[in-house]
């Protein structure tokens, strides 16, 4: 599904990714771990198409097609979803109307009519129940004054609504208490299928107790330096990242 080869990227002439390769197949869950500053969020933003980053070498393919030149919204229309580490507050736009606009713009891009209001409401009800989101919450301005947990639940709610092919969860566990973590993980697990894939970016093993990865990759200094199965995450938790750094020397 997603194939990244020898990706080099920089921001303001500072090189951040230095030859990263990764392949994610449908039905798989990949975890990307690594110390602060390793390039984890940069990778997520580059896959989503953030323009500030300059890709200097390598390529990113989705279902065999190079997406390097596509605008962020076109990547979204092709099924890429990024759950933001810091979701942006948008005063004056309610959660409901934001997601309605997002869904209908995606449908428009595919040549489809707007989703009938009745179907939209039904889906909103189902998905908000899945994420244990209160109705009143949906009429509030997007992310404005939301707690950390509410912001992350809202991200996964949007993911549920948009049903992406590839979901990238960037530090979705940060700022979550244990109950919120369970709700969010449960939501992600319910959305998983053999046709989609998830990349979980995290600093800690904690989230991976709930969303169990098929593969774990360690990102260090802009490259994947070690890959393994779920047990690698446990090992990292026990030994810390210094162990990897020492191994590299």
């Amino acid at each position, binding site marked *: 599904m997603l194939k990244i080869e020898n990706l080099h990227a920089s921001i303001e002439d500072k090189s951040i990714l230095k030859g990263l390769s990764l392949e994610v197949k449908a039905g798989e869950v990949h975890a990307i771990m690594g110390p602060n500053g390793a390039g984890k969020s940069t990778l997520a933003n580059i896959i*989503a*198409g*953030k*323009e500030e980053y300059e890709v200097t070498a390598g390529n990113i393919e989705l279902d065999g097609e190079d997406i390097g030149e596509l*605008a*962020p*919204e076109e*990547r*979204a*229309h092709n099924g890429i*979803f*990024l759950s*933001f580490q810091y*979701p*942006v*507050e*948008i*005063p*004056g*736009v*309610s959660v409901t*109307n*934001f*997601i309605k*606009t*997002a*869904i209908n*713009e*995606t449908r428009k*891009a595919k040549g489809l009519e707007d989703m009938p209001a009745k179907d939209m409401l039904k889906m909103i009800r189902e998905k908000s129940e899945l994420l244990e989101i209160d109705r009143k919450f949906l009429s509030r301005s997007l992310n404005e004054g939301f707690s950390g947990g509410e912001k992350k639940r809202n991200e996964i709610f*949007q993911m549920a609504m*948009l049903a992406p092919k590839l979901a990238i969860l960037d530090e979705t566990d940060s700022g979550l208490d244990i109950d919120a973590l369970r709700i969010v993980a449960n939501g992600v697990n319910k959305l998983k299928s053999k046709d989609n894939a998830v990349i979980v970016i995290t600093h800690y093993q904690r989230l991976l107790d709930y969303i169990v990865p098929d593969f774990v990759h360690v990102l260090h200094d802009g490259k994947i330096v070690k890959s393994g199965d779920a047990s690698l995450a446990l090992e990292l938790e026990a030994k810390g990242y210094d162990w990897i750094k020492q191994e590299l020397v």
Partner: protein
Amino acid sequence: MELKDKLVSSYVAFENRVETDSEVHEIRSKALQNFEALGFPTKKLEAWKYTSLNAVLKQDYSLFPNKENNIQLADVKKYFIHDIDAYKLVFIDGKYSSFLSETTHDTFDVCLMSSALVKPKYKAVIENYFDKIATKDNLTSLNTAFASEGAYIHIPKNVEVEKPIQIINFTTGSEAATLLQPRNLIVVEQNAHVQIIERNQSLTSNPVLTNSVTEVFAAKDATVDIYKIQNDDENASLVDNSYIEQKSKSIVSVHTFSFGGNITRNNLNFFQRGEHIDSILKGITIIEGKQHVDHHTLVHHIAPNCESHQDYKGIFDERATGVFNGKVIVEKEAQKTNAYQKNNNILVSDKATINAKPQLEIFADDVKCSHGCTIGQLDEDALFYMQQRGIPKKEGKALLMYAFANTVLESVKIPEVKQRITKLIAKKLGVDIGFDL
């Protein structure tokens, strides 16, 4: 000939067309002298520092278009809020169009200034209210000097007018350039209630200058809501001089939607003359190209326990320029005043300009006065966030701008007006989204 000289020398011709043996005409003649002495405003005046009329005044305006110009309803229907039942006062090139209008004299008067100024029936109201609160400045004096036509609205005590009144001035472009000076008087007696929608619309690209004066009197417990839709041709300029006097416990709101025109200057003045008054001044400005919109507001608090709320939002693209000058005066006697002023602006292009100047003159010591003024750009992170969810950049920008302006729309009481403004905003921003936020 300079426009000023042309106007002054045409006064004799004007006098041949109106009743001159009246108190009103004495007021007119004094106003002419006043204008003669003051002339047109120049940038040397503090109040006109950022708005120049020079280019606009160079046109050779036709002062009293003589031709009867008819227009078909089908051609202009779109300029009305046509999906509501409303009284209509329609003027074509300054002349009343009975064909397009719908007036009344049943329990209240929605009719013409030209008849109100001469018929004995209206004499008492004219004597009490005509030119009583309009300041004697240059452009208001000019309007007063030639005051002859416009809207006359008188709502007696306890009458709630059940449908809105639309006042529309069309210019047909039958003259190479047209100067219009509508003069409106709106008197709303005790506990009466009325809603008014105003629009000036040029139907061609021939230059138009409209210098309008509107006086509004809201008696005790009266409620008046005024909506001004300014979305004119780019060769049409407007100076809207509005003066509003409020008595105790009255509520008056003015919403000004400025989406187009050449130079648009709004002089909106509120005079509070009683206690527990609420004055609401709101505006949305969205312009581009070389358009210019200037909001000069004044709220004069003279008695205790009153409120005023100002909320002006501006979005300026390309080389558009904006001015916001909001003046609040709180007199010594006006204790417990709650005056609130907000002016937020987005500059979409780095060539756009806004000059914002809040002016608070507070002489009372127990008051709540706040003002906030911001100038910013669109939030790039918010745009990326929206794009990531599948909303294209253009639509994302429009959504952000609409959300930014939306606080002004929340207080619009006529749903059809709100819908129309929402559609105009979507059209301005070039997107096809409903914004039903």
